[in-house]
Structures are given as structure tokens and as C-alpha cells.
């Protein structure tokens, strides 16, 4: 039995300690907002936060998440009110949308650590997240927009 705290809620799960966190979130807890894309930490679709740090849940054994605060896209905000989510809507970033949970979770860590990132900062922070629909230009714009909103007190 492994105890997990996901999006401020506590769970006890009966899974092997080497099971990737991704599949515990998706298959055991039903939190399917976190996506499977590659299984090798190459695409970033499965990005979640462990104690505020972005990790690729597809290669993170669930045992590593024990005792830590796990945040998934479902827990980033209560009502899609995070400045990044609002900016994503304002810039109409998603196309197929499949990679977007991971993109937003990566961007959230960037914005926390660097409230006014440059294009180069954004590229460096987001290089691990693939978008096959090619929304990168809009991702850059949306992160800049979220940074401005957050700077104006729009963050929650």
C-alpha cells in the first residue's frame, strides 16, 4: 500500500512501488488529464508537479511520489482560473489539445520561478514538451500573456 497526496486529496493505492506515477494517476485514480505520449520522458505530455517541481510521471516510480504533494492539471486550479489556463484560452492555443496538460504544467513551474520570462527562457523551459500540432508560437504568446496577467495581480 502506498499513500499519495494528489491535488490536496489523500489516497491509498495498492500498486507495485515501481509502477510509473502516470499509470497510478490514470488507471488507479482515474485522473486522465495527465497524458501518455512516449513513456520515455521525451515528450512531456505526462508532466505533473512533485512538491512544485515538474516531473515526467511516465518515468517516475510511484514510490518516489510518496509523501510529496502531487499536482496534476486537474489540481492546478479549481476553475481553470490559473493565469496560464486563461492565457491559453485567450490565445486559443490548443489544436488537438492532447499535449496541453503537460505544456501548462511545465509552464506553471517556469512562471513561478521566472515571472517575466524571455522567449529564450520559454524555449529552454518548454523544450521537453512536444506539440505535434505545432502550437509553439501560441504557447510562447500565452506564457507572455500569463506573465503579464500574473504581474498585474491576476494570479491565484
Amino acid at each position, binding site marked *: 500500500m502506498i499513500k499519495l497526496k494528489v491535488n490536496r486529496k489523500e489516497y491509498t493505492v495498492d500498486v507495485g512501488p515501481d509502477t510509473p506515477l502516470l499509470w497510478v494517476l490514470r488507471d488507479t485514480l482515474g485522473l486522465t488529464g495527465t497524458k501518455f505520449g512516449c513513456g520515455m520522458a521525451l515528450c512531456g505530455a505526462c508532466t505533473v508537479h512533485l512538491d512544485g517541481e515538474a516531473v515526467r510521471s511516465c518515468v517516475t516510480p510511484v514510490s518516489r511520489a510518496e509523501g510529496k504533494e502531487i499536482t496534476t492539471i486537474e489540481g492546478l486550479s479549481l476553475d481553470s482560473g490559473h493565469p496560464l489556463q486563461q492565457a491559453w484560452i485567450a490565445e486559443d492555443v490548443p489544436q488537438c489539445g492532447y499535449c496541453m496538460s503537460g505544456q501548462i504544467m511545465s509552464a506553471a513551474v517556469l512562471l513561478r520561478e521566472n515571472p517575466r520570462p524571455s522567449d529564450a527562457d520559454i524555449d529552454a523551459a518548454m523544450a521537453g514538451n512536444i506539440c505535434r*500540432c*505545432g502550437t509553439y508560437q501560441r504557447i510562447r504568446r500565452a506564457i507572455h500573456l500569463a506573465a503579464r496577467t500574473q504581474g498585474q495581480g491576476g494570479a491565484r
Partner: protein
Amino acid sequence: MSGIINLSRREFVKTGMLAGGGLILGFYLPGSGRAATAAPPTGGTFAPNAFLKIGTDDLVTVIVNHSEMGQGVYTALPMLVSEELDADWSKVRFEAAGVDPVYNHALWGMQATGGSTSTWTEYERLRKAGAAARAMLIAAAAATWKVAPASCRTEQGQIVHAASGRRLSYGQLAEKAADLTPPQNIKLKDSKDFKLIGKPTKRLDTPEKVNGQGVYGLDVKVPGLLTALIARPPVSGGKAKSFDAEKAKAVPGVRQVVQIDRGIAVVADGFWAAKRGREALSVVWDEGPQAGLDSRKQREQYAELAKQPGVVAKKKGDADAAMGRAAKKIEAIYELPYLAHAPMEPLNCAADVRGDGCEIWVGTQFQTGDRDAAVAITGLKPEQVKLHTMLLGGGFGRRAVPDNHFVREAVQVSKAVKAPVKVVWTREDDIRGGYYRPVALHAIAAGLDAAGNPAAWRHRIVCQSFTVDTPFEGAMIEHGVDASAVEGARGLPYEIPNLLVDWRRAPGVVPCLWWRSVGHSHNAFVVESFFDEMAQAAGKDPFEFRRALLNNHPRHKRALELAAQKAGWGKPLPLGVGRGLAVHESFKSFVAQVAEVSVSQEGQIKVHRVVCAIDCGPVVNPDTIAAQMESGIVFGLSAALYGEITFANGRVQQRNFHDYPVLRITDMPVVEVHIVPSRDAMGGVGETGVPPIAPAVANAIFAATGKRIRRLPIRGEDLKKV
């Protein structure tokens, strides 16, 4: 005139599609003779089409018969209805259509999404559906108020009687309108009166795509759902000879191991157990006839095939004679690899086969064929098979499969284990699983006259057909030529008096498929790169050289001129940066792109900026057009810079995003999209951004380095400065 019928009191109400009553409109076209209901399909070609629902809660739901895979149909198609309905756009919702002939593609006689056709094929029908509903709501209001319908008007989801100032919302009128007979003469708005069509409009599906709530095929939850991974042959065309499931079954969570047509399925409680179970499975494979497939040998084979005449796809004048007379001749071989689609969401399908019915949850582009495949496997009747179209995490053609293999797998496994099962592909399964853009080799030659004008053009395309022996053969093969092999090469827009384009069919040793922009994806690269070679041989500017030959193709010309103007063609660039352009028609739209590219001493390629101009005729959502051009450019750049599937010993040598890389944000150029104002025929946008980018970049590399790219992907080592 197409007929519209009121379905509100018919089948769909009974099946609970609109709980609480309201107005539902069906639609049928002349010749079908059938009303639009959920009747058993008869396979009729011009079957009924398109629906909307208006609830008493004022919500307008457009039931969309095309799959949303990022291209924006869940917004563009509701816009068409909403415009003519004069709906309150904030009350408009979308819903994926079930499988029924009523939802068939307007031209294809089956429910399908592809060919960049969704918006232009629905443009009239969905507007008519909206206009008919509007007329009925007016009639319902007029009857309520006992006034003349002509004295009523609509305003954002309300009927207004101006003389008395009375208003009723569509929701308030829905029940009453549901009892009316639809008008048969429907007048559509003049485009100058459009309030929504043509305006940048936010996508309806964005909110659920930023909070994890959107449900893709992979996210489907069904009570008791098991997960299966399938061990498939390591070589295309191989088969399992025998297998030992003992160790696989010993993995905790593994329930069953069953053999199906395409391999051995390991069925488990969840993905991880299924994956570990598959790793523990031992299979002896009969590798079949392709066990020796080797990409290097295949290149040689294709080069030999290029020496043999093919089937003529286009002939004008006498290319050979003109070539003999030419003042200057150039020739070249161009080569392009197999490409995987690699949508972000790996393929998957969930199926629940029971004795009395079957349910399928899948992100698919081919609903009818997939449903029929399930009918064939289960022996059930078509109406007993219910297919739910989920969000597609990318399609690009990979989810439009004539053999329905990824749906068949799930149905077969569910049938075998008598439980709901979701078959999931890993990324490795996807990259190695075949159904690629075909490998192609092109032998091309041109002759110029003394003035540097093109006098002769000879283009031989060597590639396989992937439509032969499929239900699409009839539509795709004409006079022995596969349209998907030669599209974009046979309809050359440039004025060349003598021309011969032929297709030498190569053996189909690996299953191939339409890959976003299909034949255009290789033909545009060859034609537009070689046109640059001609311009250089003629000593002319690549833009002016093309422009002078496009007098009979004004849409190409306008797109080319707009892109060149916006890009500042001819203006100085920073040292080391080259500018290249390409223009190409595909899927009834015309796209020109200008790329600015530099190459480092080490051969590192940097695409700085791409200026794109598109003429797609009348515009529905300009923001979606821009998004699709950005998307097509990235998709085409991934292929041009990195994309390559190769074989050794019959096995695919790539497996995941480390050795099948795609463009990342670090390599994203600035992309500017400009729309040519146009009242010409409407074309598509989903694929049309892809074809011009590879030649535009290759031509820019030539401008920057003097080195000509004739083989994709572009190899940095060939561009190193020594």
C-alpha cells in the same frame, strides 16, 4: 433543393438525444428518398445529413459529423449553423455525431474526416440547417403572438416583434417549433450580412483542453474496463507461429493472453501490468517475406525502377523531342523516406462486445468502416454496434485506416475475453507499426530554351500505391494511375509546352497510408525544389521566374505575390541567411511560403521566419486558418529536418521521439500567416500548409549555402562548411 424534416417527435427523441423536448432538425438531399432518422444504414451514397438541437434551456447543440483532431471542426461547423440561425454564439455547443448514413461525408458515402474537406463540404448544408430552424422559430413566435411572420426578426437567439417590442427566446419557442413543418425553400444570407462567418472566433473546445477534462479515446472510462497491449510481428507481414504465455500470466494484474489476427494480446487490469506482461511474453514469429527488407537496398531498387517507364499521369506536347532541342538541360534525382504520423495520442480503441450489442469508443477518422468492421467480427447488426467518436489527440491521416486495424484489434480482444477492453499502442508500437507515408524516388529533368524559358519537363515518380486493393481503389485509381501518388505533380500550374509525368509503381512491402497532405507531401518538394534549379539554370530570380509562368493560374500567382511582398522578397537579409520560396495548390487551396534559413559552420540548420499566404476562398474562421498554416508548417518542418523511418533486417530502426524527432519549441520559427481576400471556390486548410514548407526551406538553404537539397530529411552533415 434539399429537403428538411422535423425530427423532434421521431426517433431521436425516443432515444433520449434531447431530454426535455425541443427542436431537432434533420436534413436530407434529393434522391435519397429517405428521411433523416437513425434508421439502419443502406449504404446509400447521397444519404441524409446534418442536425442541430435547440433545447428549452436555450442551448443550441450542433451535432458534428466530422472528427475533431485539432483542425477546428468543432468550432467551424457550429459557426455555419449559428450564422444562419442567428444564434447567441455563447449558447452554442457541439456534440460528436453517432454513426448513421445521415452523418455521411457529403461526397464520400461514408462517415469520415479527411482530405481537408470538412468545412467546404458542409458549408451549404449546415447553413441551410440553421436557416430552416430560424424560419421555424419565427413561425412559432408569429403563431404565438398572432402576427405575421414577416413582422418578426431574429436577434442573437431571440425572436423579436418590433411593433410590440415582444421577445421570445429560441428555448422558449423550441417546443412549439418542434411541431412545425420545415420550410422547403430556404434562403441563405448574403455573405455581406455575415456576423460570425469570416470573423476570428474562439474555439469552442479550448476550455476542456486546458483543464484535463477533454476526453480522448485513451481517457475513456467504462466499468470493468481492461487494458490490452498487443505483441505484433517485428516484421511487416509476419505472423505468430507459437507463443508461451506462462511468464506473462505470472505478472500481477495480467488477466488473459489471447491470440488475434494481428498478434498476441496481453489483457490486464491496467496499462502497466499489460506492458510488463507483454515484455514477459515469449512469441516465435514467422517473419514472412519482408524479413530482409533493407532501406539501402530499397533505394537501389527504386533507382532501377526510375529507369523504367511508368503509367502516364499527364502528357502535353512531346517532352522527349523538346528536351532534345533544348538549349540547356538539367536533371536530378530526389528522394524522400517513409514517415510515421506520430500523433501525440498513441493509437487506442476501447470496445465492449456483448451478446446483444457492441460499444466502441475511439478517436477515428473513419466511423462507418470501423463500425462495419465490428459488425463483421461480432456478427451483430449495424444498429447493435454503437461507436462513440472521442476527441482525437492528432490524426494526420493515421486514424483513417481502410483496414480498420486498430478498431478490429479491440473488438477481437473484447470478444475473446468477454469484457470491455481498451487496446493501447505504446509510442514504439506507433513508430514501428507501419502505415507510413510511402518512400519515394523521383527522376526529373527539364529543358530550357535559349531565352531561359522552360521548354520541356519530364517527371517520373516511383512509389507504392496504398489504395490498390482497398475500398478506395475505385475512387483513387484512374487509368492505372493512383491519384495519391501523383497529386501535386501532374497538375503543374506553370506554363510548360511539353510535359510528361509518369508513375512507376513500386511494390508495397510495408503498409502505407495518407500522411497529412498525402502525395503533395513529396511531390511539392520535388516540383518546387526543381523549379528553383530551373530558375538558377536560367539565371533568373526564383520569384520572378515562377510569376512569369503563372498567368493562367491567378490564385497561385496571388498567393505567391502576397507571400513575397509580406516577406520582403529581394530585400537584404543578415549575412548567412538565405530566403527561399514555394507555392503549391492542394485540397483546393493555394499556399505560398517564404522561408528564411541559415546554416552554421557545423551544418546546423536554423529556420528563422516563415511567411505564409493562403487563398482558400471564402473564410469561415480566420484564426483557425492561421492556426492550421502554423500547424502545417511545423508538421512539414519536422519531416524536412528530421523525419525518416528506415528498415534493416525487416525491422524499423526507429522507436520513439529520440530517434524519430519532431520539431520542438526551440526550433520554432516566427510564422506569419496572410489570407488572400478571395471569392473563389472554398478549399481546405488542414493539410495545405504542409507541402510548400520543405521546398521553401531547401530553396532557402540553397540561397544561403549554394548547396542543393535533393534528399529528405535534410542532412546537416552534407551542409558542413569544410
